[in-house]
């Protein structure tokens, strides 16, 4: 069977000693930084991105993927132990996880989260392996018009699922697209918006922008209020292994969470956030003892944790098959691929099957490492939680500066970091989410190229986007998404979801 031989190739790649090592390093670094206060998965990857550039493409992407789910796992740990979700997708875990910790069952909560994540990760890996090849085959038939329409749909629905005002998020995407166009025009060689700086001829530094907007701006936001000392609950974590009864109670939520998360993860935008929130709502509604929710229900941890991990995994599907990032972390992966000289898209699977399948199988290996490593290491993570923030952020700044500089040895990129740190912070203050900006930035050049190509093929007639059936249906979907988002009822409902989700 094809699937088996493909997975075999993947395991052969991912299980080579050096790739195993980089996967391990990625998972540990990711968890470490995910556990440290005030740094989310996106900022972590942006910061560590440059370290991976020295590696082989496969190893570097495997390590980045490891950092991603490691950071997510670390985020759940902080959610449970100190009621401080590392990122929005583990916000729901904090509700019941923290209550379990308060009742002396912190160890159980952590184990439930880890087991749920592992199960979801396993299922989602198989799903990625099953669905990626047929999708790739479809994507190979895509022309410039289809790609253009697909990107428009992707960007608009990413915005629809983002936090806050729809209009502002849309504006951030468009601004990101424009920033992505800075640099030399590939068709004519004309410099665009370079302000006469030769350093901008290659475009704005992707790493500099990401580190500024996600790293520096976040630190500034954290420095606003007096940084409170964090109190970690419970001197002892309690027993680690869930009792037989707890295990029984987590099976069904875990299954449902996995299904929901896998489906939503493929959607562009905050699929993982929506998945964990959705799973919590479903479990509460289906539970025979809904009054337990909010007071430490096992299902309230198992469901959302499975959902968000499944979503994190399946969000690799659009990246690997279409080359289109579903969320900011995937946008960073696209950036990493481009810097490594790989053009993300359907060709990756056929031209570099070892890379493609290696990444997919390494996800499963990484998840296994997480569960094997982290349950015994929880004691260390708890100690790390107590590191005061004011000792941390100078280290982050130092490593970010080194990282950004090491990409090209370009001093100008460091100015980019400072500029986008300031701009990112300004946007945070203006209540504009930075994630759509990064998605736009990555897709800007691709969008323009496909637009130009489609228009040349269509001889300057824009109806080319509507006469090709796939392109037309993608655009119709886009219009539907916008229309639905502007309905007052949906708008109110969406705000409610995100308010509760926070």
């Amino acid at each position, binding site marked *: 069977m094809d699937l088996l031989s493909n997975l075999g190739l993947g395991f052969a790649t991912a299980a080579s000693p050096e790739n195993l090592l980089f996967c391990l390093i990625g998972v540990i670094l990711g968890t470490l930084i995910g556990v440290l206060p005030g740094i989310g998965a996106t900022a972590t990857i942006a910061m560590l991105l440059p370290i991976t550039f020295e590696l082989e493409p496969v190893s570097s992407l495997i390590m980045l993927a490891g950092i991603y789910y490691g950071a997510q796992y670390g985020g759940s740990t902080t959610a449970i132990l100190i009621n401080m979700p590392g990122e929005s997708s583990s916000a729901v875990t904090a509700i019941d996880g923290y209550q379990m910790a308060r009742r002396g069952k912190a160890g159980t909560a952590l184990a439930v989260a880890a087991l749920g994540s592992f199960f979801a990760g396993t299922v989602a890996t198989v799903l990625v392996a099953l669905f990626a090849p047929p999708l790739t085959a479809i994507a190979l038939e895509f022309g410039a018009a289809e790609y253009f329409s697909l990107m428009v749909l992707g960007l608009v629905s990413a915005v629809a699922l983002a936090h806050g005002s729809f*209009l502002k998020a849309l504006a951030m995407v468009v601004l990101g*697209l424009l920033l992505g166009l800075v640099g030399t025009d590939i068709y004519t060689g004309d410099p665009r918006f370079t302000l006469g700086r030769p350093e901008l001829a290659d475009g704005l530094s992707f790493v500099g922008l990401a580190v500024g907007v996600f790293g520096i701006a976040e630190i500034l936001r954290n420095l606003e209020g007096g940084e409170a000392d964090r109190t970690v609950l419970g001197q002892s974590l309690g027993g680690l292994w869930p009792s037989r009864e707890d295990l029984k109670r987590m099976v069904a939520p875990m299954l449902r969470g996995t299904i929901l998360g896998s489906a939503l993860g493929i959607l562009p935008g905050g699929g993982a956030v929506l998945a964990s929130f959705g799973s919590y709502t479903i479990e509460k509604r289906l539970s025979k003892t809904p009054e337990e929710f909010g007071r430490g229900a096992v299902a309230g941890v198992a469901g959302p944790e499975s959902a968000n991990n499944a979503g994190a995994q399946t969000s690799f599907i659009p990246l690997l098959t279409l080359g289109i990032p579903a969320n900011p972390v995937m946008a960073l992966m696209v950036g990493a691929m481009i810097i490594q000289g790989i053009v993300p898209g359907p060709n990756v699977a056929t031209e570099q099957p070892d890379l493609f399948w290696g990444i997919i199988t390494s996800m499963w290996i990484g998840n296994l490492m997480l569960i094997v490593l982290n349950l015994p290491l929880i004691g260390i993570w708890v100690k790390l939680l107590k590191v005061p923030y004011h000792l941390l952020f100078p280290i982050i700044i130092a490593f970010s500066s080194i990282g950004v*500089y090491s990409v090209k040895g370009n001093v100008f990129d460091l100015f980019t970091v400072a500029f986008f740190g300031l701009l990112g912070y300004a946007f945070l203050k203006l209540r504009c989410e930075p994630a759509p900006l990064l998605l736009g930035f990555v897709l800007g050049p691709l969008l323009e190229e496909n637009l130009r190509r489609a228009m*040349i093929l269509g001889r300057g007639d824009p109806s080319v986007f509507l006469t090709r059936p796939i392109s037309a249906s993608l655009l119709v979907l886009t219009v539907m998404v916008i229309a639905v988002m502007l309905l007052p009822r949906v708008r109110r409902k969406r705000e409610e979801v995100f308010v509760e989700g926070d």
Partner: protein
Amino acid sequence: MRKSFDPTDALAGIVFIAFGLFFGLSSLLRLDIGTAFRMGPGYAPLVLASVLLLLGVLILLSALRTAPEPVTALAWRGMLFLLPAPILFGLTVRGLGFVPAIFLATLLAAFASPRMRPWQAVVLALAVTVFSTLVFSYALGLPFRRFGPWLPV
């Protein structure tokens, strides 16, 4: 505008309008727009900038009909010490070399928090310098000059 007006959203709208104007006008004035058939370098930016301008206006208009939300304090001290840190690193890494540059940048960044005591900042900066010199310069072998030509070493 009389009773409810959200300054945050209004400012956001103005910022987007400003970016839209910048990109739009630079495309119009400096770049070849071309035709829809053969797009010049200015075509796509001009279209996008117009969309951004329109969105900015819509955000500004809707801000005039929204109740204001409380604004939190700005991290002035953070901005003052944090933002110049990467710049300082950039300006000194070639001249002074990697080791002094990373020390100075970390030290500067450390003062962004009022909780940081001077001795802590120095110890922290030293530790970061030693660690990153060992990891990045020796172990990873990144091609940085450890001490630059500005120093009489």
